[in-house]
């Protein structure tokens, strides 16, 4: 018999970052409907979004080291959650910088974009800050639904609709699988609370029984879909390529961070005692994902599609970090490396897509040849793109190198040296396609008129991402410390 809910169960402070983003979503929605079109209108909504996400980041950081929960652990604010929330908010904030310039140039409505962006971010935040299966499910759905609409945002382009529909259908399928897995887990353990599940699984002697294995398999497959792990990645290239590029930038980051938040919560926090059962699954997935992502990326002529496959490859690297999980000791490098990689990936991948979006808003295409000689026509943008691509390759001292370094360290500490070598080999292979683009920009023949640097928001966003990619690696100490402070 459930206990009655009392008022002391409500602790609204825990939800402060969420509430700010929710308010932002509702205000932009209302403002977009009420206020007539005009130039200041876009400017105002952008400023509001920047203030909203900035305020939410400040609120989240102010709540570190409190470890409070609310609504009977439906909302939990631990440092793990805060790290993920800040990563998601940073992704949203940077997307605003990119979209503020490029979305109006692509003749798409900015107000709806901001509203959907806020809802999707909110969904990810819900997943990050909860220890309950139901909330994780709700959060994933909220996050995904907004992104489906965003993927179809260029509604007059067939590819956009097609990609969104593929994404929607496969994702709905994956959701069903995930939910089924959660149901089995609930059936065996009798709880949706992850802490309780972990306690009961520890007491369980027969962890190899069919229902638990089925639950594990279904959950790994379901979350694998959301994170775009091979062989559940089929929707990714089409959805990424079809969506307007500012959307792709966000899509390649936020839903992935959300999926990894769910993996950390469900697999590590809830099913930690089942480690021996799910780790082999994740190792297989990670090798397949790194392999296919990197090898297929080589063959791509479209930069957007190349980055789509490269983002699949990065999913593989992050999966290595999760597979390196050994035991839930605070300060464990495996989870810290996953958190850090997500953080690093946010900046460098958003940055790379941002440059593609900028090039498209200038009327160019998205093929490798369109980048030819960019170093001459737009040296700053080319330099920024080079920084992002080198970082994605993992060249020190850029942010991406530190991400990979911590992943490799985690794998070797977990006695998975061979997996670390696989990471390294695929990093070397990935250098080929990233470098080809850098070579095209720097060594290719320039084409077209010199480009002019666009509006302030975009430049600011690029500057933030470049500085972060250059500097945060060298100063990764505090970030890694924060990532290592996770406590369930």
């Amino acid at each position: 018999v459930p206990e009655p809910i009392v008022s002391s169960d409500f602790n609204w402070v825990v939800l402060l970052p969420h509430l700010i983003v929710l308010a932002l979503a509702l205000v932009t929605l209302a403002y977009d409907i009420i206020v007539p079109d005009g130039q200041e209108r876009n400017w105002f909504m952008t400023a509001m979004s920047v203030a909203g996400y900035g305020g939410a980041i400040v609120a989240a950081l102010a709540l570190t080291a409190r470890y409070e929960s609310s609504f009977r652990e439906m909302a939990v604010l631990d440092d793990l959650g805060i790290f993920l929330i800040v990563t998601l908010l940073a992704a949203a904030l940077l997307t605003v910088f990119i979209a503020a310039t490029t979305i109006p140039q692509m003749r798409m409505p900015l107000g709806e974009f901001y509203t959907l962006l806020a809802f999707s971010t909110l969904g990810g935040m819900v997943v990050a800050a909860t220890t309950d299966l139901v909330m994780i499910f709700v959060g994933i759905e909220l996050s995904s639904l907004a992104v489906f609409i965003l993927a179809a945002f260029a509604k007059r382009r067939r590819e956009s609709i097609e990609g969104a529909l593929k994404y929607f259908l496969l994702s709905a399928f994956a959701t069903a699988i995930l939910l089924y897995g959660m149901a089995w887990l609930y059936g065996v353990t009798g709880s949706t609370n992850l802490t309780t599940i972990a306690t009961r699984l520890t007491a369980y002697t027969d962890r190899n029984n069919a229902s638990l294995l089925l639950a594990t398999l279904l959950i790994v497959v379901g979350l694998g879909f959301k994170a775009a792990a091979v062989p559940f990645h089929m929707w990714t290239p089409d959805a990424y390529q079809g969506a307007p590029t500012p959307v792709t930038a966000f899509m390649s980051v936020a839903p992935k961070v959300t999926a990894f938040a769910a993996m950390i919560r469900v697999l590590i926090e809830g099913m930690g005692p089942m480690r021996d059962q799910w780790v082999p699954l994740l190792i297989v997935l990670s090798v397949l994902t790194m392999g296919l992502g990197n090898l297929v990326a080589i063959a791509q002529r479209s930069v957007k599609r190349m980055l789509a496959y490269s983002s699949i490859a990065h999913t593989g690297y992050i999966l290595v970090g999760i597979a390196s999980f050994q035991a839930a000791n605070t300060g464990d490098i495996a989870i810290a490396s996953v958190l850090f990689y997500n953080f690093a990936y946010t900046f460098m991948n958003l940055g790379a897509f941002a440059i593609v979006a900028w090039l498209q808003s200038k009327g160019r295409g998205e093929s490798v040849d369109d980048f030819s000689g960019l170093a001459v026509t737009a040296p700053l943008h080319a330099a920024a793109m080079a920084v992002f691509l080198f970082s994605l390759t993992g060249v020190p001292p850029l942010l991406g190198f530190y991400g990979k370094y911590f992943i490799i360290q985690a794998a070797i500490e977990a006695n998975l040296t061979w997996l670390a070598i696989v990471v390294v080999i695929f990093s070397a292979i990935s250098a080929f396609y990233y470098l080809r683009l850098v070579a095209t920009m720097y060594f290719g023949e320039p084409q077209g008129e010199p480009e002019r640097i666009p509006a302030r928001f975009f430049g600011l966003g690029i500057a933030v991402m470049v500085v972060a990619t250059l500097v945060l690696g060298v100063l990764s100490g505090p970030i890694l410390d924060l990532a290592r402070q996770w406590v369930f």
Partner: protein
Amino acid sequence: VQNLVPDAFPLLSLITYLPLVGMLVLFLVPRISDDTARWTALITSGVVLVVSLLLLTRPVAEGAGAAGKFAPMIWNEQFEWLPEIGISYHFGADGMSILFVLLTTLLTPLAIIASWSSVGTRVREFHISMLLLETGLIGAFLSLDLFLFYVFFELSLIPMALIIGIWGSRNRVYSAIKFFLYTLAGSLLMLVAIVATYQAFYNQTGRRTLDVLELATQTYGVPFQYWVFAAFFIAFAIKVPMWPVHTWLPDAHTEAPTAGSVMLAAVMLKLGGYGMLRFCLPLYPEAARYFAPAIMILSTIAIIYGALVALPQPDWKRLVAYSSVSHMGFVTLGIFAFNEQALQGAIMVMFAHGLNTAALFLCVGIVYERAHTREIRLFRGLSSTMPIYSAFFCAFVFASIGLPGMTGFVGEFHALMGAFRGPGFASDDQLNLYRTTAIIASLVVILSAWYMLWLYQRVAQGTAPGLQLAHAHAGGHGGLGHDAGHAHGAHGHDSDDHGGDKVDRDHRAAPEAHGAPTDHGAHDPAEAASHEMHLTDVKPREILTLAPLLVLTIVFGFFPGPIFELVAPAVDNLLAAFK
């Protein structure tokens, strides 16, 4: 003089990051004029050279240092960086580091002077790359933390690849990417080995560190040592480069602009040898002993192979590049003989090779700037058209052969003597191997005399200067049937790497390229032709790049003592593990 620099002064960091100051100036002033950019870079690197000379103000520290395997650091800087995972910011310099840092700081300004007129496009970006390269190289020679070393090691790759890929000659993009991928693949394996060593140290001591001075205090298990050593060694062998992982080098050297070739040959290759001495040997001594015989054989192959392949090269620069493979073979030969004489010799070979090969590339660059070709068969009688130039070139040819009285001789002689003596712990069978390799390697000196003197004979001696060139440009290949046939005949020796294809492509492209040197858009055909007709002698600016190298080659050829004394503590301590 000894207390010129206070104890707490971060001299090493200053030297490392000073080039970045000039780089930032260039970066932040987008409309800087070409000449201002050149002067900014030259002044910056000149200041770095002067400041780096301060490294010599402290006496060389004698005695045993950290772990009994390192010399006491003359200069030391250590701060916490990422303490939780044991990464520290640790710079240190013993005599060996100082030698290579000085080589870097000397050659960077020379390379910038050498590019004064030969680099005419995107001048600002070129000098940004050069200064970034200098920072990367100096940092790598000073790092004592493996993580920090890796960062600088990789950092130096990007500007080098850009220098080859943007300012190189015809096949530059291919060469730049090949260079980058080759070195990256090697160093990524090293990264895994670094983390594995870190973890092994943690398992043995419970402490987390990447400080090589601390890591060397532990003895690691034997099968573990083998593969970790191999990973490090392959990364450094690619840099050296050793046969059979040398194939990036001829392409990179041939296509790179003069400054790129100079920095690559004189400094970057030394990172390989330096890395073996600094990291491979002290950390994994058992593995080093185990692999030594195989490495001796590979080194001998490299020495012979480099010389044999250099012999028929039709491309002047490619010939010098292959001679590098041969000379660097003496380095690994000396290192893995594990005795004082051999190690001293190996370090001396690196120093000598840095001076000589840099000078030889500068010589090729000087002629290329005037004639826009490097094909040996097109040159004749330079000693009458360019007498001063030929005198310099002749001197460096002899330095490369190893004429007594020049640094090359000192280094190779010691390396060979040391290799013949072999390590103190060697069994009779191993000793025989060492002696055999040393004897074979010393016979190669004849080959090196052959290819270098033959090169000199073909380009500098003979009569009718300019006639061949004029002929070639008027009639394309018409009058050169004999020469072309000769060059094609040479392919057979070179067929196991890409050299053969490359030459073929050059040949097909030759008529149009000579008529209009498209890879140097700044020169119009008429101007180029007039240059070719009258190959003017070296200008004072060019003498300024060659003279210091010649002086150093001769001074340290006759008086190598100071360099041996500088590196002696490092060598002695290193050998303590190989008695």
